């Protein structure tokens, strides 16, 4: 086994090289293609196949590396001497990194296969080489984020990730909305990065090094409020990327603007990089002696994100925007686990913190799979119908049977329903919170039941939203020409979605192996007391701390399917062979049922809009043209608007303030060279005085 580390190093090199080749070769191929007029398209097609295939190979290598790290438990450490002026550089892949690396690779691989079919649409219109360059750089930089063991390297790849996604969001750059979304994203991302720089500089000033190894457990050595400042920098800096409310505003703009394969990666994986950063800083760097308000603050943000995320999702008719809001909701659910873990750690209950963090990390993986799946499904719908507005869809279950089945699985999973994977992580989150109720601390006693209630609310609203999203898009009669002319997607697209469906099923029905690994990873992060807090015996998943709360997902799934035999048998026994007759749906006495008679998505969410009207502040306008008779109105237009509280009360004032201060600053920008020379002189004198 002595050559084991070498083998893992080799796999790491394969991963990095694969993405790099996938990034560098396609632009060259495309360029050659463009210089030869008649054989150009062939070069582009080859570039596409090469770029996505090498991304797939890298992802497979990434999976292998992740599995080897997670099973062996010992980290892979690579020191690179003298790369930058700042000295040595380190790559450090421990179990936490390995887990996120696995998540990236799993979704990255599936999306790369999907893209082989999906990118055909981009082929004629776009520079394929450029797209593939950015796509592979995006994947490579995400891998870089989780394996970086050095703050400078980390910030470098973190920026690379933000910039690559900026270009991927603005692929459709003719559309002003797309440009605006990309700009908003890059501004928000840089606000986050700025805070991360501040955080690392603070840590540097106390350790004299940018190496992550020196940051480990530094929280107890930092004086006074410094740990809290670092905590807040990390929370906001990573929170922007994760998309927590109120830093979420870029997310519903950027996800729909990007091509669907990119949105699947952004929503499935990229926003989890924020969670990775938080887990790294909160538990690895700052823990375990932390004040309890950190956990409470994270819980408040988590609850706000999840409830508002799902409430805004309910009002959306744009399939991809709807999914984007659900990402905010799910980040909220993940952060409930993280927040509860912080809270329990601060009160000295490492075992409970272990359960909460296992729940959070398992939800990271689950959300990556089912949200990746749902975005790919939305991409297929968009590909087939050329509309994202679900009010114009309907009846796709007949024209796109596979896509609709896969989307349904994703919808059941994201609603947290058994026997799929969303249920397992929500169940664990509930268990962690319920057990926390026994901690004799007033803040916990208030925070925990409210979090439980709001998690239940979130789950139920998510189910309502996906009944709407699936029902209006795929069921009933087609509401427009777009939907009527839909066709099933290409085999690679279906295959990629099918793969993610299988992962969702496995994670839901047989969660044992992955949970075992997550357990030991949490033990490595929080200390041995937190290890093994979620036990798996003979397919039975239970939480030992509570002695007896358990669920058996495999048996449950088996019975759900197996017991269908009883109604089938009962039907045959009580009524014999079934007589079937096809007859039209009742149309209230009219001749036949029309698509316009069906419920719309707006109508579907009306009760919820009424119940939560204080949050939505909806206004609607009805315009009726009164041309001929007052009884037969030829045109009725209905417009509904919901208001974003955050834009109105937080971002707009902030923007006004920024513009006002820019106006003030303009006074020193005279435009005369003499005054600039004077500024330089004054600055030099001041620097000489201070620096000496």
């Amino acid at each position: 086994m002595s050559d084991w580390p070498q083998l893992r190093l080799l796999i790491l090199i394969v991963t990095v090289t694969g993405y790099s080749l996938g990034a560098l070769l396609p632009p060259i191929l495309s360029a050659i293609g463009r210089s030869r007029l008649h054989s150009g398209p062939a070069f582009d097609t080859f570039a596409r196949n090469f770029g996505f295939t090498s991304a797939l190979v890298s992802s497979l290598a990434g999976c292998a590396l992740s599995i080897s790290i997670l099973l062996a438990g010992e980290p892979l450490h690579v020191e690179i001497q003298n790369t930058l002026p700042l000295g040595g550089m380190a790559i450090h892949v421990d179990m936490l990194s390995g887990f996120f690396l696995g998540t990236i690779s799993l979704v990255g691989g599936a999306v790369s296969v999907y893209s082989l079919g999906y990118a055909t649409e981009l082929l004629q219109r776009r520079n394929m080489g450029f797209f593939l360059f950015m796509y592979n750089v995006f994947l490579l930089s995400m891998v870089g984020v989780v394996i970086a063991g050095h703050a400078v390297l980390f910030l470098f790849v973190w920026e690379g990730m933000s910039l690559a996604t900026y270009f991927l969001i603005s692929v459709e750059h003719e559309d002003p909305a797309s440009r605006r979304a990309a700009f908003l994203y890059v501004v928000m991302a840089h606000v986050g990065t700025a805070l991360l720089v501040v955080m690392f500089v603070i840590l540097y000033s106390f350790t004299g090094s940018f190496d992550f190894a020196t940051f480990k457990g530094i929280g107890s050595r930092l004086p006074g409020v410094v740990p809290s400042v670092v905590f807040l920098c990390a929370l906001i800096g990573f929170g922007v990327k994760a998309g927590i409310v109120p830093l979420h505003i870029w997310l519903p703009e950027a996800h729909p603007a990007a091509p669907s394969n990119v949105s699947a990666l952004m929503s499935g994986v990229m926003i989890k990089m924020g969670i990775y950063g938080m887990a790294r800083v909160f538990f690895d760097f700052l823990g375990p002696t932390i004040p309890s308000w950190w956990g409470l603050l994270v819980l408040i943000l988590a609850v706000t994100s999840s409830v508002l995320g799902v409430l805004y999702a309910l009002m959306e008719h744009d399939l991809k925007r709807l999914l984007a809001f659900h990402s905010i909701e799910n980040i909220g659910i993940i952060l409930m686990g993280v927040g509860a873990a912080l809270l329990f750690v601060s009160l000295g209950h490492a075992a409970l913190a272990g359960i909460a963090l296992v729940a959070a990390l398992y939800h990271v993986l689950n959300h990556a799979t089912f949200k990746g799946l749902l975005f790919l499904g939305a991409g297929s719908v968009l590909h087939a119908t050329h509309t994202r507005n679900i009010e114009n869809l309907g009846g796709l279950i007949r024209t796109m049977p596979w896509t609709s089945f896969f989307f349904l699985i994703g919808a059941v999973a994201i609603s947290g329903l058994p026997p799929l994977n969303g249920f397992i992580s929500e169940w664990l989150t509930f268990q962690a919170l319920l057990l926390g109720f026994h901690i004799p601390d007033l803040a916990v006693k208030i925070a925990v039941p409210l979090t439980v209630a709001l998690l239940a609310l979130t789950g139920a609203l998510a189910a309502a939203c996906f009944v709407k999203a699936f029902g209006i898009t795929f069921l009933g009669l087609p509401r427009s020409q777009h939907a009527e002319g839909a066709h099933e997607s290409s085999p690679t697209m279906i295959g990629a979605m099918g793969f993610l469906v299988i992962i969702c099923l496995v994670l839901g029905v047989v969660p044992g192996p992955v949970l075992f690994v997550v357990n030991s990873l949490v033990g490595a992060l929080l200390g041995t007391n937190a290890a093994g807090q979620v036990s798996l015996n003979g397919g039975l998943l239970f939480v030992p701390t509570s002695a007896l709360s358990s669920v058996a997902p495999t048996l449950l799934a088996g019975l759900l399917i197996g017991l269908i035999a009883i109604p089938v048998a009962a039907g045959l026994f009580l009524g014999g062979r079934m007589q079937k007759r096809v007859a039209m749906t009742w149309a209230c006495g009219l001749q036949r049922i029309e698509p316009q008679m069906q419920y719309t998505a707006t109508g579907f969410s009306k009760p919820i809009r009424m119940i939560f009207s204080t949050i939505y502040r909806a206004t609607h306008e009805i315009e009726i043209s009164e041309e001929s008779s007052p009884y037969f109105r030829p045109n009725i237009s209905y417009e509904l608007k919901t208001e974003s509280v955050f834009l109105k009360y937080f971002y707009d004032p902030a923007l006004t303030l920024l513009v006002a201060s820019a106006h003030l600053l303009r006074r020193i920008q005279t435009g005369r060279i003499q005054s600039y020379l004077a500024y330089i002189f004054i600055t030099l004198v001041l620097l000489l005085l201070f620096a000496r």
Partner: protein
Amino acid sequence: MTEIAPFIAVSLLQLVMIVILAPLVTGIVKKTKARFQRRRGASVLQPYYDLAKLFKKEVVIPPVSSWLFRFTPYLAFSSTLVIALLVPTVVAPVPLHWMGDIITVIYLFALVRFFVALVGLDTGSAFGGLGSSREMSIASIVEPAMMLAIFSAAGTAGSTNLSVIVQKLSTTPEAMLNPAHLLAFSGLFIVTLAETGRVPVDNPATHLELTMIHEAMILEYSGRYLAFIEWASQMKLAIFLALLSNIFFPVGIATVLTPWAVGIGVLAFLFKIGVLSLVVAAVESTNAKLRLFRVPELLMVAFILSLLALILYFIIGS
């Protein structure tokens, strides 16, 4: 699990108690409501006759519908059967108690609701969407209240396992009179009315488009499919009454597997379920159905009751 025979016997007893008795519960509620209206009413056995007839009738399938329309009745029935295996009726612990806890039960009901609501949109009918929309909206405000009520019961027992909750409580009968316990019971009772589609939330006896919720979703079902859906919702009512009676008042429930204990358990269960059906019928008869947008207020009451229960539980302690 060395003794396989009692394991199977008790599991079957569980299923029989819910599956066979469920139509009777509905029958009792209907009969009582009829008596409240000074009608004689149909026999308490009428739901059985209805089901038997539905099984023999042909199934009408709308051409717009998909495989979901044909699959959902079976899924609804089998999921409810799984729930019936988890909720203690006569014996605690039930043999498969480790398979799932109260959260699993709630989420399995949510699974059924999810698919039935999809079927509402599947047929292309205007009523189906109306029912689905209302059902999902009401369910989403029911859920937090239900979780909190359950939370206080689970908090007392230190576990979410239903059998453990029931066992803990039956060994400490004085806890049944804890005010926190009674508040949580009232919270869950309101939740039960909403979840099983009873007046004042939904009226199971009407097909008026202004008021119907559950019936609107399943309007296109007929024959055997309707029988499964109806039977599953009757089972849901029976299961909720079993939850109410056994989580809060597990009197007489058999904790050992002797013929005597089980016999008493059966009698106690029948008595409790009977009383609760009468109470449900009385509530249904003495209240008017609420306007749809007044329903959240009622559920807010349930939520506050459950929250009060938790706070009291925190103050009084256990």
